[in-house]
């Protein structure tokens, strides 16, 4: 199981860097979600399944959904062309 842990931890670092370097807000949200999912797998490997359940429900589910709603409200998802021009 050691190698799986190293792969997951490496994936965490890659995700954390990719979130801040991604230009598209929707992409960075997706990466943020996958970060939470990987984190929940790591919690299972660390033998704390209750934290894994909470991480999957809150981190990957509810937080990202709230982010999606906010992005939709500020029209960051719908109007792609306008958003690309601004940057």
């Amino acid at each position, binding site marked *: 199981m050691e190698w799986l842990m190293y792969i997951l931890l490496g994936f965490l670092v890659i995700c954390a860097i990719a979130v801040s370097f991604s230009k598209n807000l929707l992409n960075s949200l997706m990466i943020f979600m996958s970060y939470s999912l990987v984190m929940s797998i790591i919690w299972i490997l660390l033998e*704390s*399944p*209750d934290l894994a*359940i*909470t991480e999957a*429900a*809150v981190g990957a*589910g*509810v937080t990202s*959904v*709230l982010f999606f*709603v*906010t992005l*939709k*409200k500020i029209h960051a998802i719908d109007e792609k062309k306008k958003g690309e021009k601004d940057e």
Partner: protein
Amino acid sequence: MSRLKEWDSYKKTRAYRFFRWYRGEKDPFLGEVEIKEGKLYKDTRSEEEIQKEKEELMNKVYDIDHNKEIKFFKLVYGIISAVFCLALTFVLLLMVSYSPKTGNPGNPNENEVPARYIENGLQETGAVNIVTGMILDYRAFDTLGESHVLFIATITVFILLRIDKDEKGKEKDREEANDRNYEPKNDAILQIIAVIIVPLIIIFGIYVILNGHLSPGGGFSGGAIIGAGLILYLNAFGFAKTERFFTEKTYKIICFCSLSFYCLAKSYSFFMGANHLESGIPLGTPGAILSSGLILPLNICVGLVVACTMYAFYALFRKGGF
């Protein structure tokens, strides 16, 4: 109505002014503190002059290629931020390398507190899951604060994002604020998947809450699962369906009942424990579903509050009310 002073001299006292203000007859700040409408600034120059000045300003300030100060500032800013991030990473990694290895018996966290939790936890709390026994029995006060934090967070979001209702009871038709008009109507794939999966999610959440003292999980995890299931249901079927069973009133009742029950039950048990009295709450046989005293009802309370909070957050973000 008798007064010690004459009417004219009474008029000058502070009490008279205070009662006048209290009865709402006169507001002493009315017309004093409000911002008065000032004169509008009129530009006397012609449009060409304005345009010219704007262009000059833009060239001077925002022309990065020729403005040396901005160029220099950008360079320094980038270097400083990179150096700061690297330094922070270095310091944190250094601290990690100094911290003791996990599982070492000589670690500072291996004192009498976790030993007591592990040795006497089952007898004292009756919970097979020591984590739940810890957070809902030994440290129940902590969990009470956490659930209140969730409640206060919902209220804060409610204050910030709420849409006021008109006098007629209709919501203001602000297109931006009300998200209902943009809901995708009757998405067949989403609805059929939701019909299958939402009951399973909610039953799993209830299972996690009810078995909080027996297996990993508890109020927070189960409540988050139920909240996620409710959000999925809301997304699939829209607000009209969820408002049949979950409105602002439901939220108020559930949160008030859960938090006050938690508060009263734990106050009772703390009071009895502090005075070395028998609380009279049976612990039951460890491993049975109805055991471990107050932990099961407290778990249900926390789970209800968390589920309501999750749903309320989403509903408030979507349409400013629920």
